[in-house]
């Protein structure tokens, strides 16, 4: 059993999340679908409401008080985001809709100018579709090749394949920091070094890591990193692309429109400086302000404390689940190799049937292919059930969940 460290006060944190008070099907909500999206604390909900109530205005070009306040709050959130992942400069933070859009931006803007026929793009079999399909589109357009790194039985990336696949024809290596299915935390520092040794750039999909652990873009030395606000207590519709200044400055725009230009004439236009070159049109101002408030909230809890809490609850859940007859758990055995994500199957119960049965107990889990069909095919299952934790989840909730698994087993006469 993992020793209790009490890094955070869960019952106090739960007070900050109004939704956790609600009942589902007459039972207290057990929200174990955090890898899909997290719940939002009052501080974030109020920050968004305050923008609309008190200083709603479009940003940057307005010469009036409200515009000034809105611009300040928007740019303040950019600085907070930069500090949160230890970026060297705020202008290395580009606001996008989500991690998916961030990867599409890189694949289109950087990809189309730097990737050609015969070049190689190295990704892994455990990627979310968002880190596969943009590269497939780029490969179709350019004639580049995609190579997938496979995993071991424990759900770890095959080091031998990494070393073989990444070569001098490799233009970019794009890897998830933490798998949304297996929970595996990948050795991004060493993969980045390997990429750079061969002159390739390194993109990290940090959608499942930035909300849950200390992530440092300069320590990892990645060229690009993407993450989504809604998985880290912010509203949906806001995400971040981090890019090294030297790359962003050379890249052509992704979307054209207002804000991203310096001058526009009938025959030509010149581009604004970064980050604005990549933020065409009115952005999700409220979303960005919400993200800033979420980062403040996460900093108050302490991201390292959240990580320790989640490792503890993951260890507890792994040991509890293993006591349920007929359960098969996927991914690393040790909680230290994981974020708080556990995928599993129970007997021959299909994941959707299991999710329906647990829903009746007020337990929200995810079921299906988790937008990772190549991984499902590689492991050889059509679907999995997944639970995923955040700062507000408790071991008591794990007990409720384990109890419900037993009920599902009895219902299906396993």
């Amino acid at each position, binding site marked *: 059993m993992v020793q209790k460290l009490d890094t955070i006060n869960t019952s106090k944190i739960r007070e900050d999340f109004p939704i956790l008070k609600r009942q589902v099907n007459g039972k207290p909500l057990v929200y174990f679908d955090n890898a899909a999206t997290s719940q939002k604390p009052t501080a974030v909900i109020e920050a968004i409401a305050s923008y609309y109530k008190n200083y709603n205005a479009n940003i940057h070009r307005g010469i009036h008080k409200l515009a000034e306040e809105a611009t300040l709050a928007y740019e303040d959130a950019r600085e907070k985001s930069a500090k949160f992942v230890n970026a060297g400069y705020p202008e290395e933070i580009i606001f996008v809709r989500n991690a998916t859009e961030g990867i599409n931006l890189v694949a289109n803007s950087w990809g189309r100018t730097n990737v050609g026929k015969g070049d190689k793009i190295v990704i892994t079999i455990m990627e979310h579709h968002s880190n596969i399909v943009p590269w497939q589109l780029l490969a179709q357009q350019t004639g580049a090749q995609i190579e997938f790194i496979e995993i071991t039985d424990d759900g770890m990336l095959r080091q031998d394949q990494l070393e073989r696949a990444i070569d001098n024809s490799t233009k970019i290596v794009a890897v998830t920091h933490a798998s949304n299915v297996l929970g595996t935390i990948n050795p991004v520092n060493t993969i980045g070094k390997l990429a750079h040794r061969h002159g390739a750039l390194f993109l990290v999909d940090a959608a499942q890591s930035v909300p849950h652990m200390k992530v440092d873009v300069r320590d990892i030395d990645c060229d690009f990193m993407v993450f989504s606000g809604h998985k880290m207590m912010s509203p949906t519709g806001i995400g971040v692309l981090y890019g090294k200044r030297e790359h962003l400055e050379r890249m052509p725009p992704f979307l054209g429109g207002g804000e991203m230009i310096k001058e526009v004439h009938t025959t030509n236009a010149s581009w604004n400086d970064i980050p604005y070159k990549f933020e065409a049109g009115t952005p999700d101002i409220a979303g960005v302000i919400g993200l800033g408030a979420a980062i403040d909230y996460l900093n108050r809890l302490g991201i390292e404390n959240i990580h320790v809490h989640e490792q503890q609850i993951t260890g507890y859940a792994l040991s509890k689940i293993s006591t349920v007859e007929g359960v098969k758990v996927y991914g690393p055995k040790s909680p230290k190799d994981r974020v708080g994500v556990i995928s599993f199957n129970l007997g021959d*119960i299909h994941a959707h*049937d299991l999710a*329906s*049965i647990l829903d*009746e107990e007020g337990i929200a889990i995810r079921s*299906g292919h988790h937008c990772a069909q190549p991984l499902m095919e590689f492991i050889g299952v*059509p679907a999995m059930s997944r639970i995923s934790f955040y700062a507000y989840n408790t071991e008591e909730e794990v007990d409720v969940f384990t109890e419900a698994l037993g009920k*599902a087993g009895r*219902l299906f006469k396993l």
Partner: protein
Amino acid sequence: MSSDIYKDIILDYYRHPRNFGDLPNADIRVKDANPLCGDVIEMQLKVQDGKVEDIRFKGKGCAISQASASMLTETVKGKTLDETKALGKQDVLNLLGIDPGPTRIKCALLGLKVMKLAVYGFLGQSVTDEVKQLV
């Protein structure tokens, strides 16, 4: 939805699907998936004198999708193509004996959709919007 939907009969069809497998000499084979959840159903029909002479299905997915597809194959065997085309959502719910609720109704109707695609395909007719919207 309540877990009452997992009645013995549904579990029985899930674990021991009737008319499961391949139909050699099938006149038409149609496969479709529910992209939201990945459930897959393939229907294979042998048609004789305007009737479904024989039928098999294959698939992967939840108990609701697989059981309802299997039950449907039993229902349409021997029926005319017109009768098969006339089957609707309520017929499937009657077969299952439950209402799977709004999130799982698509699981229940995937088999019906594939069956209709097969019949329309065999007749060389274009599929109606009603069929396309089943799942």
